[in-house]
């Protein structure tokens, strides 16, 4: 049984009585200990999916309009608020994009880490503090005992993200959702944080759902990849397959737009056009206005899953490479 199963999930934005779909019928699963990468441009729905899994959309105009999210076999929509709170921070944890704002400025680092320990583990103050120091050591913060008494503003962005990771790991979660964990960091710090995540994953055996718009990050860290475009998963495959033989024109475009330092040219290759706004209704395949291979059928008929193999799907009428 998969640890996390998202089945035909649809999300919509409720604005002045209208429901505008933002995530459309996506399915994926994460097995215990595995890493799933979700990649896509800004606004494709990848973060919303994560927020929906963590139950952070309750107070927003986003509504779940269909499908199910199951964690350890339990439907998250049907459990009570108290049961959900018992899961959050204990079995599943999340780290956010903005390490500068994701720590409460008025509390010491140690207090923030021990909070979820106190909530889920009922540890004594002393034991929780010792555990917090251990966690800081685990995320390789120098002088962990001393740092427990630091305030967030005394730490750099990379350090804060490490603290966030330490907080998330406090109760040994089975699943960690990392929503663009390195986007706000310097490139060098980015690499350190990703290495750290990979090491911690190996040590603790947790599963990671890594959300990013950076294909490099995904390629290096993930076993499976799902590419999202405009609320749909347009291609899903193992990382090896996806990067070796991309099948959806969008994935091909993304891969082509990575600059090649050896190539002897000055221009970056980009996908033409722009991400459509959610107000635009696009008949047929949502990607067809930007697709170089678009045919008449793409303008009228929504593509179903063109299954290349059981493990490699692409939402396209004319998937490139492979089967033909």
């Amino acid at each position, binding site marked *: 049984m998969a640890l996390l199963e998202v089945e035909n999930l649809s999300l919509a934005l409720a604005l002045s009585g209208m429901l505008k779909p933002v995530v459309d019928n996506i399915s994926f699963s994460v097995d215990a200990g595995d890493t799933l990468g979700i990649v896509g441009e800004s606004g494709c729905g990848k973060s919303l999916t994560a927020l929906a899994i963590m139950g952070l959309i309750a*107070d927003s105009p986003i509504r779940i309009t269909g499908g199910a999210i199951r964690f350890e076999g339990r439907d998250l929509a049907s459990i009570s608020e108290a049961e959900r709170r018992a899961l959050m921070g204990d079995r599943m944890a999340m780290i*956010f994009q903005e390490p500068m704002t994701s720590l409460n400025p008025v509390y010491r680092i140690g207090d923030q880490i021990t909070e979820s320990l106190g909530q889920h583990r009922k540890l004594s103050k002393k034991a929780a503090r010792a555990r917090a120091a251990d966690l800081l050591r685990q995320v390789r913060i120098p002088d962990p005992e001393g740092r427990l008494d630091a305030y967030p503003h005394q730490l750099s962005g990379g350090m804060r993200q490490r603290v966030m990771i330490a907080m998330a790991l406090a109760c040994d979660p089975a699943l960690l959702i990392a929503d663009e964990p390195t986007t706000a960091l310097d490139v060098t710090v980015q690499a350190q944080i990703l290495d750290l995540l990979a090491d911690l994953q190996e040590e603790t055996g947790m599963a990671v759902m890594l959300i990013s718009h950076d294909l490099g990050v995904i390629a290096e860290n993930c076993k499976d990849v799902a590419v999202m475009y405009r609320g749909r998963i347009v291609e899903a495959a193992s990382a090896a397959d996806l990067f070796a033989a991309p099948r959806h024109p969008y994935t091909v475009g993304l891969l082509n737009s990575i600059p090649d330092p050896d190539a002897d040219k000055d221009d970056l290759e980009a996908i033409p056009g722009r991400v459509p706004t959610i107000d635009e209704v696009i008949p047929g395949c949502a990607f067809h206005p930007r697709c170089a291979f678009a045919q008449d059928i793409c303008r009228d008929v929504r593509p179903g899953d063109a299954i290349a193999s059981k493990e490699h799907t692409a939402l396209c009428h004319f998937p490139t490479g492979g089967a033909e």
Partner: protein
Amino acid sequence: MTAALATFNQVFRGRRLALLGVGWLIIVAIAVVFAPWLTPYDPLEIDPVARLTAPNAEHWFGTDHFGRDTLARCIYGARMALLIGLGAVVVSLVGGTLIGMLSAYFTRLGHVLMRVVDVAMAFPALLLALVLMTILDRSVTNTIFVIGIVYTTTTARILFGMTLKLKNEVFVDAAVVTGAGHPSVLFKHILPNLISPLLVQATFIFAFAQLQAAALDFLGLGLPPEIPSWGNMLAESRVYVTRASWLLMFPGALIILTVFSMNLVGDALRDAIDPRFKDDIAGV
């Protein structure tokens, strides 16, 4: 203690007027604590022979129409000023914080509560206080309560806006995903971030409460007349103002000085917390 001194220095450095304000408030505080030792006279003791004496060596601030010592009444009046100020601050901050925070956090409840606040704010503060005092009896508790209610509305408005902003901060989401429930999110994660604006708000409410209390006393709807308060003294001086102007001047000056001092301190605190509002007048 050294940390407190450092903070004090940070807030008031280069603000000589605000420091004078602090000085005056310390004098008021001393008067409040040591009132019985600062004057040989009882503020209520009547001396018909010495009525309406002009300020002299014996009665520094003169006496009123019952021959009561004005200085003693001013000193004891400071007690009332402080009590009313603090009471109004506590009532309005507790009420306003609860209303503002809950309204911002629970959107539906907020729709109802904030409309009530809007209606209350549509009345001029003094008018609202007058209406409430007409319904209630004249007493210290009721005066504190009514002035507190009047400033609850503005506090609720301010806290509503700040909580709306704070509840969308990532650290609040981060708290939610570690399994924190509503009370924990509200009071452990949001409220501590509101302490500094609340502190600033407290100083202004304290100052405005003085004016409000004086106005109510003057109109005969505040503290009972037998209680020596600066506002009651003003009200009583009205009749004798042409013959005994000191009766008007001393309590009036005390009200002005205290309100002005409190506002200066509030300005300094606000600038230290939110430098965007800082004015360019050096030393203010």
